[in-house]
Structure formats: C-alpha cells, structure tokens
C-alpha cells in the first residue's frame, strides 16, 4: 500500500492516489487534496464533502452521484457544476474516500 506525503503528513493511498484510511483525513487535508486537483472550495463544496464523510461512516461505502442527489439533496446538475467533468471521483478524492463502486 503506497504512502504519499501531503501537507507534511504521510497518508496511505491506493495506486491512484485515493486515501485508504478513513481517519487519516482532516478538513485541512481536504483543502490540500482540492488544491491538488484544481478545485476551489466554497461552503457549498464543503457541505457535499461533509455529507459524503458522514454517509460513508453510516453506510460503509461512498455515495454514488444518485445517492448524493436523492439522500444528500444535492442535485446532479449542481454536482457537475461544483466538481466539473468527473464529479463522483473528484468529490471522493477530496473527501478522502474511495471511488464509488455503484453504477448509478
């Protein structure tokens, strides 16, 4: 399992760079992750990230685009606006969670 250094800390990541340990994340680190992929975070961005983290804690897996809309209340269109082109992956990365497995 690779380890990479971000924000001065060593974190465990998979081969692509997604964090693998839930507890190694912090909001500070989230900012670094967002900067790494060129996403400028606003309060709305953070609302989604916080939803993803708490949902992951409850469900044990990362919410898909659809779940973020139906359960989280963030319309798909908005997700694409806040995290252009690959919202599901970008949101998961910034939230320190694995990529969603579900298809929808």
């Amino acid at each position, binding site marked *: 399992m690779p380890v*990479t250094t971000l924000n001065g800390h060593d974190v465990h990541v998979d081969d692509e*760079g*997604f964090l693998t340990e839930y507890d190694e994340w912090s909001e500070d680190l989230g900012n670094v992750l967002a900067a790494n*992929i060129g996403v400028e975070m606003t309060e709305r961005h953070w609302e989604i990230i916080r939803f993803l983290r708490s949902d992951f804690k409850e469900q044990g897996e990362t919410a898909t*685009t*659809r779940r973020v809309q139906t359960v989280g209340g963030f319309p*798909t269109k908005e997700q694409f606006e806040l995290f252009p082109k*690959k919202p599901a992956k970008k949101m998961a990365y910034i939230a320190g969670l694995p990529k969603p497995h579900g298809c*929808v």
Partner: protein
Amino acid sequence: MTTDVAAAIVPKFDDDTETDRKLAIICSKGNLDMAYPGLILANAALGEGVEVHLFFTFWGFDMILKSRMNHLKFSPVGNTAMHLPVTDSRVAAALAPMPGMTAVATKMMMKQIADLGVPEVPDFLEQISASGGHLWACRMSADMMKVDETDLYEGVEAIINASDFIEMTAGAQLLFI
C-alpha cells in the same frame, strides 16, 4: 546526502486532456431490460467527463415517448436467459407466453432494478440530462409512429434525421443497442 522528496501520488483527472472523447449510443429497443444498458453506460461515461449523445430509434422511441416511458415491459418470450429467484432456474419456453407472464416478469425486473438503487427510465433520463447528456429522437421513427416534439419527453433536444446523427457523431465511439 540528498533527501529524495517523492512527488505526491495524486489521481489524474485529466481535465485538460480527455476533453474530446465522444460517445454516441443508439437505443433501438423498447423492452425494459434493453432500456438499461444504454442508460447505465451513458451515465457512467458522463461521470467520466465524456460527451454523450443518446439517439432513440425504432422501439427505443418508447423510452422517450411520454405515453410509454413509464410503462416499459419485459417478457421472457424468446428470452431463455431470465433468472427465476428460487433455484435460479429458467422460465420454460412454453410458459412464457401465458397470460399474465409479462406483467409478472416486468414487476420482478422493476423490483430487482429498484433494489439496486437504479432509477426508473424517466428519472434516469433526467439524471443523464442533468449530467450534460444529449438526447435525440429519430426522424424516421417519429414519422412512422406519427408523433412530434409534444409527444416526447422534454429532455429530448430535437428530432433529427440519420444524416444529422452521422454528422454530429464524427469521431465518436458508437454503441448500438
């Protein structure tokens, strides 16, 4: 002694590169089971930043007809692959056309799909549109069935003919369902 600082491992989201990938999916089937492959792949492609065009033709037109899109059906007639829940057996071919079988099979399929959290066709089309997918209706099918824009789901951008479709999908990867 030098300290090597390894570059941080960051996923490549390729915002600047993969911008020209285009996928066109032709949906030509109107049965419930065959509506999904196109929708699932379109949704997945959109989530990867691919430009997606869905072209509904022939029976696939039912997927975008307001009068039918909520009532797509599935029948095991001619389809020996249907899995029955108990013992994972098949439906005997002779039983498939019996009255009521289509309704039962449709209901089963819809439940299995819903249990996976996958939306019904209209909601799915809405998600695809919201994600930036383009929906197109086939001119010839519209003429055959004698329908126009008013009969179609609002998310459909236009009724276009085969040449328009060929032009718009230049350089695109094509999928026929």
